[in-house]
């Protein structure tokens, strides 16, 4: 398997674990973003870290987006004081937002690990753009920095 193929497989496996821990039957773009922060390639990881987005910071941003979106309908997760349920045994499959991220990211002949992050950052709506916005992260600027880091890595 190519280095890129191996990267993609590892990130998908990490994303599946993130989805399972999230209680989701599908791997979504936010699970892939979390996976990238813990993934084996330093190029996308460092771009995110430079914007203050390590694994915990992305988790915090996603939690904030969840509460913010619930509040828009007058609800709150904290209002339901139920015990945490046991984790699902189902194997999460690729969801719509993750499929879009893959389609948007891998458009050229020479795929790089940074392309998956680029695909995620090309979303104009949905959980990730909202979470980044609430965290004060400029999504377009982050995408630009990812492109620059990708080009620099290719030159090495």
């Amino acid at each position: 398997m190519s280095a890129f193929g191996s990267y993609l497989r590892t990130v998908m496996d990490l994303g599946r674990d993130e989805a399972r821990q999230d209680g989701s039957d599908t791997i979504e773009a936010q699970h892939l973003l979390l996976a990238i922060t813990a993934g084996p390639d330093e190029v996308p990881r460092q771009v995110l870290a430079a914007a203050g987005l390590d694994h915990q910071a992305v988790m915090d941003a996603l939690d904030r987006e969840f509460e913010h979106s619930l509040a828009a309908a007058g609800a709150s997760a904290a209002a339901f004081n139920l015990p945490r349920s046991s984790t699902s045994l189902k194997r999460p499959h690729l969801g719509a937002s993750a499929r879009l991220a893959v389609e948007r990211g891998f458009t050229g002949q020479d795929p790089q690990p940074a392309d998956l992050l680029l695909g995620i950052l090309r979303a104009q709506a949905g959980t990730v753009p909202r979470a980044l916005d609430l965290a004060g992260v400029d999504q377009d600027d982050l995408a630009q920095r990812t492109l620059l880091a990708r080009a620099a890595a290719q030159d090495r």
Partner: protein
Amino acid sequence: MPGVEVPVSPDPADALASVVALRRLADRIEDAAVEQAMRAGWNWPQVAEALGVTRQAVHKKHAKRLIAAGVALRRR
């Protein structure tokens, strides 16, 4: 009787995101509530009726997880 006011945001992005978040919250509550009920001795037909779904549907969705978690399940 006056209607219950639900404060849905006028911003479509917020309103759409609230749909996603409410579905996620509902799924979480369902998982926790079904587990809590089965641990408290409810059976599948009772849980199904309370959720307004068939017994087969609730069994298919939750049985494996609860068995793995060591919950003693009552059939009826």
